[in-house]
């Protein structure tokens, strides 16, 4: 098995310090430090052109299957409960205009790929509010300047801005809906706003309760912005919408909105880690998902399948950034107890998944575990960025890494395979 990446040298400390500073001020990377860890990697994930050519069609097939399955599920409301959706969302998603409105909206998804002993696998789809534009577009561009024989995988923010213009027209008003008090979300929206401005649009940064609706069309009602909206980019998790005041008409964001959305909040269907549990009840199969996602079970069915918990990864239906993931041998004992209690209490909100053997990346500071997030917009790949972690769990301590595509492959590297590195430890990974 050939490795899909090349090993490259990190930037020297002085150069990387300049990149870090530029990432903060040019790319709105406002969280460059988490406790004692720099969140930016000083070296890129240098994929071979061959690997990228393999990943692109996989991501596009996954996106097509996802959208088709979401529509099929919207037409089968009895499946909502199995996905772990709260009752308010279940009730609102049952409205027929949610399913019929889907074709009006844009679908942005990020699929998280891991290279394993069995080839590429995915750990999940970030289907609802995929972030990371600052890293995928901005930080990646900064790093690419220093690696001459490589290209980027695309600029998802630029593609997004262009796609918005195509749908909503030139000089359109774009509401960037997010939690304004949450700096981690704010930085993504400010970055997108800058790119939209460069493209000639009028971005307005608002919280969801600054929206009002008339005949299905959105209007702004903030102290600093009022009037009609041409496009809504939502960066506010779907499962939090029911907590909003009624006056903001949050249910329009599920997909019935006449104003174009990205994403409609019906995306929560495939955001749920329990999405695979309803596949058998759909008219069409999801062959790419079935191949790439480890086998997924309801936690109450583990013993019926003769499995032992130690061989599985446990994830909450709506987990975030690797939080609350249980992996035997990796999750600390105290956390294990807390997670076990949560699983016992709310088994319908959890899944168990087969573990896979991730192939680590050799770096000057030891083996690291990479994850490559590939963005699709309306089922076309528009870019990627990576995260790397010292342990086989992609969580908040993982670093953001630029994903670059090598233009040429040296002979020595081309022939490198995981068999050449007998001392490496392959480890199961969770994300």
């Amino acid at each position, binding site marked *: 098995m050939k490795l899909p990446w090349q090993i490259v040298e990190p930037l020297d400390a002085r150069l990387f310090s300049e990149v870090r500073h530029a990432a903060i001020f040019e790319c709105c990377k406002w969280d460059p430090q988490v406790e004692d860890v720099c969140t930016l990697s000083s070296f890129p994930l240098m994929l071979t052109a061959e690997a990228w050519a393999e990943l692109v069609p996989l991501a596009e097939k996954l996106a097509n299957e996802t959208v088709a399955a979401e529509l099929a599920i919207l037409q089968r409301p009895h499946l909502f409960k199995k996905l772990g959706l709260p009752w308010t969302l279940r009730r609102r998603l049952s409205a027929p205009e949610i399913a019929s409105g889907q074709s009006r909206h844009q679908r942005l998804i990020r699929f998280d790929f891991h290279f394993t002993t069995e080839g590429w696998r995915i750990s999940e789809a970030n289907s*609802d509010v995929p972030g990371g534009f600052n890293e995928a577009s901005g930080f990646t561009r900064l790093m690419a300047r220093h690696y001459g024989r490589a290209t980027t995988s695309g600029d998802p923010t630029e593609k997004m801005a262009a796609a918005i213009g195509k749908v909503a027209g030139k000089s359109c008003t774009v509401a960037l809906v997010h939690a304004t008090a949450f700096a981690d979300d704010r930085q993504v929206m400010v970055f997108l706003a800058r790119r939209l401005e460069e493209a000639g649009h009028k971005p307005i940064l608002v919280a969801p309760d600054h929206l009002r609706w008339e005949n299905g069309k959105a209007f702004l009602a903030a102290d600093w912005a009022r009037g009609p909206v041409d496009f809504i980019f939502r960066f506010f*998790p779907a499962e939090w919408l029911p907590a909003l005041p009624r006056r903001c008409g949050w249910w329009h964001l599920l997909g019935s909105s006449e104003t174009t959305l990205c994403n409609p909040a019906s995306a929560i269907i495939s955001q749920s880690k329990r999405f695979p549990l309803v596949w058998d009840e759909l008219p069409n199969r999801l062959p790419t998902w079935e191949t790439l996602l480890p086998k997924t079970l309801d936690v109450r069915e583990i013993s019926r399948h003769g499995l032992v918990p130690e061989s599985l990864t446990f994830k909450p239906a709506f987990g975030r950034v690797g939080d609350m993931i249980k992996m035997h041998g990796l999750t600390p004992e105290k956390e294990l107890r807390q997670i076990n209690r949560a699983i016992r209490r709310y088994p319908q909100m959890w899944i168990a998944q087969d573990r896979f053997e991730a192939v680590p990346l050799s770096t000057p500071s030891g083996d690291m575990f990479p994850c490559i997030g590939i963005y699709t917009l309306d089922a076309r790949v528009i870019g990627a960025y990576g995260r790397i972690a010292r342990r086989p769990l992609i969580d908040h301590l993982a670093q953001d890494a630029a994903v670059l595509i090598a233009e040429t492959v040296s002979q020595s590297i081309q022939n490198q395979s995981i068999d050449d590195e007998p001392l490496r430890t392959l480890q199961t990974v969770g994300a």
Partner: protein
Amino acid sequence: MNPSELYKLWAPEDSIWSNWAKPVLFADSTFVGSEPAQTTEWQSSNIAWAPAPESGTAIVLDLPGAHAVWYGMALSQRGYRPVPLYNGVVGPSLSAPSALVNAYGILNALHAVGESLATLRLPAEAPPVFLLDENRFAGGSFADPGRFDNRWWVFPQDFPSANLLLSRGIRSAVLGQDRAAGPQRDLAHVLLRWQEAGIQILTCDVNGQAQPTPLQVQRPNNFRALWYQALVLAGLRRNSAGGFGAVVPQPSSGGGFG
């Protein structure tokens, strides 16, 4: 001076604490070309309570508005390195009449004394003074419809770990407040971790003359709970959407990777 240049004054490359300086307030603001207002306000700050810099002490100033900047600047004259940890944005406009937290005053203060700080040439290992805004929750008030919510919390991840502090010779930490009323609930999560690792926590009223006294940090709700950060962030999202209600015990989804 642009935001990038101002940030460099507060987070110079040679300081070992610069990586923790939060860029949010600097990077989300525009004051390109404006001259800093000259101020000597910080010179009247009482720092008689502050331990000597060579005592191996870090200071956390949790003071309202720009006061931590003034005190931090005064402490820099004694050899401490001010580290701004303001993690909120100004708002839709610099004057931001609708913002719940007045971050504009803090930004002005950082701007006003930034160049003076740079002239001090503090040593790279100068002990840190972490600067916070006591009003970061805006009193826990409800957000009126249409207003801009820029409230924020601090997390243990915003600070150096206890291990790192100890490795840099920091053996104690003084919490400086307007009235030594004990740490706010978010800060208690940070200080208790430090305390458990063997760092002595002290407290003092920065307006008084008394020396810092030992503080036994009480265990806050959800201390070290696996879902603590998720709950608080979920709460912030909820806050931003119109209400400072109770945090709902349900993990959020989101843009996270993995």
